[in-house]
C-alpha cells in the first residue's frame, strides 16, 4: 500500500504579535493573493468576475465581502482574499487579455494597530501617512527601510503591511523596533 504523505504548512511568523505603548503588531492569517495585470478593456470583465470594482484611482483600494483590490499601478492590482475564496480561479473565465498570478504565499501581512501605528511605519517609510495624504482605504507600494512593502490603511489607526515572505524577518524586526521607539 502506498504511503500517504501530508505536508504541514508552516506560515511564516505564524501568530506572532507584539504589544507596545500605543501600537500593536500582529502577523495576520494566510490569505489568497492575486497579482493582476490588465489593460483598460479587460477591467470591467475582471471586476465582474472578482465581485468588486477594480479601483482606477492612484493610491486607492476597493473592498467587498472579505476581498480587497489595491491599485498598485495603472494596469496592476493586488487582490487579497481573506474569506477563503480563490480570486485566481474567478479570473479564469475572463476572455480579455490579462495576467492573473497566484502570489498567496509570496507575501506575509502584518497588522499595525494603535494611535502610534502611522508613526511606527513612518520610522522607515518616506511616504506621508497623515490622514489627509493617506486616508482610510488608501493603498500604495512603497518602501520600509531597505525593502519594498505594500501598505493599506484599513482604519484611522490601522494599517496592513504586506511584504515579501523572504523580507518578513527584516520587516517584523524593523517594525518591532519602531514600535518600541514610537
Amino acid at each position, binding site marked *: 500500500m502506498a504511503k500517504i504523505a501530508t505536508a504541514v504548512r508552516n506560515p511564516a511568523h505564524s501568530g506572532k504579535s507584539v504589544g507596545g505603548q500605543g501600537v500593536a503588531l500582529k502577523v495576520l492569517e494566510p490569505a489568497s493573493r492575486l497579482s493582476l495585470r490588465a489593460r483598460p478593456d479587460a477591467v470591467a470583465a475582471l471586476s465582474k468576475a472578482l465581485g468588486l470594482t477594480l479601483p482606477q484611482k*492612484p*493610491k486607492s483600494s476597493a473592498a467587498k465581502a472579505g476581498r480587497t483590490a489595491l491599485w*498598485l*499601478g*495603472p494596469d*496592476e492590482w493586488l487582490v487579497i482574499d481573506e474569506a477563503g475564496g480563490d480570486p485566481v480561479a474567478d479570473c479564469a473565465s475572463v476572455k480579455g487579455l490579462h495576467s492573473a498570478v497566484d502570489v498567496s504565499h509570496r507575501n506575509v501581512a502584518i497588522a499595525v494597530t494603535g494611535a502610534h501605528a502611522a508613526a511606527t511605519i513612518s520610522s522607515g517609510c*518616506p*511616504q506621508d501617512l497623515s490622514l489627509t495624504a493617506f486616508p482610510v482605504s488608501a493603498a*500604495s*507600494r*512603497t*518602501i520600509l527601510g531597505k525593502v*519594498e512593502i505594500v501598505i493599506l490603511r484599513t482604519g484611522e489607526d490601522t494599517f496592513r503591511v504586506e511584504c515579501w515572505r523572504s523580507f518578513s524577518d527584516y520587516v517584523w524586526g524593523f517594525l518591532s523596533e519602531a514600535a518600541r521607539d514610537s
Partner: protein
Amino acid sequence: MLLIRCPYCEEERPELEFRNAGEAHIARPTDIASISDEDFEKFFFIRSNPKGLVFERWRHVHGCARFFNAARDTVSDKFLLTYKAGEPKPDASTLHAEGGPAAWANRPPDQLNEKPKAKRSTKGEA
C-alpha cells in the same frame, strides 16, 4: 529628500521610491542589424551629459513601477517637469530653468548669503 512628481500616481513622492534610467528620447533604430558600427556606437553608448537641463527616463520602481520622463537641471538638481512615457519632448524654452532652493544651497560658501538674483527669462538658453 527630493520629492518627485510621478505622472501616473499624480502626486509628489519621495525620491527613495524612484530610480534613474538614463537619457530620454533616444530612438531605437528601426533596422538595427543594418546600421554601421559607428551609428550603433552613437545610439548605444554616446549620451549628451550636459551641464544644466537634461531629459531623463525615471522609473517609479517602488511605487506604480512605471517608466516616465523628466526634465531636470543637473546643477540645481531641480525637477522642472515630469511627463508620461511616449509624450513628446517638451520645448526647452518653455521650461523655467531657474534654480530653486537646491541651487542656492549648491553655491560656494562665500556666495551663500548673497540675495538670489531676480528671475530672468530662460529663452534662448539650454
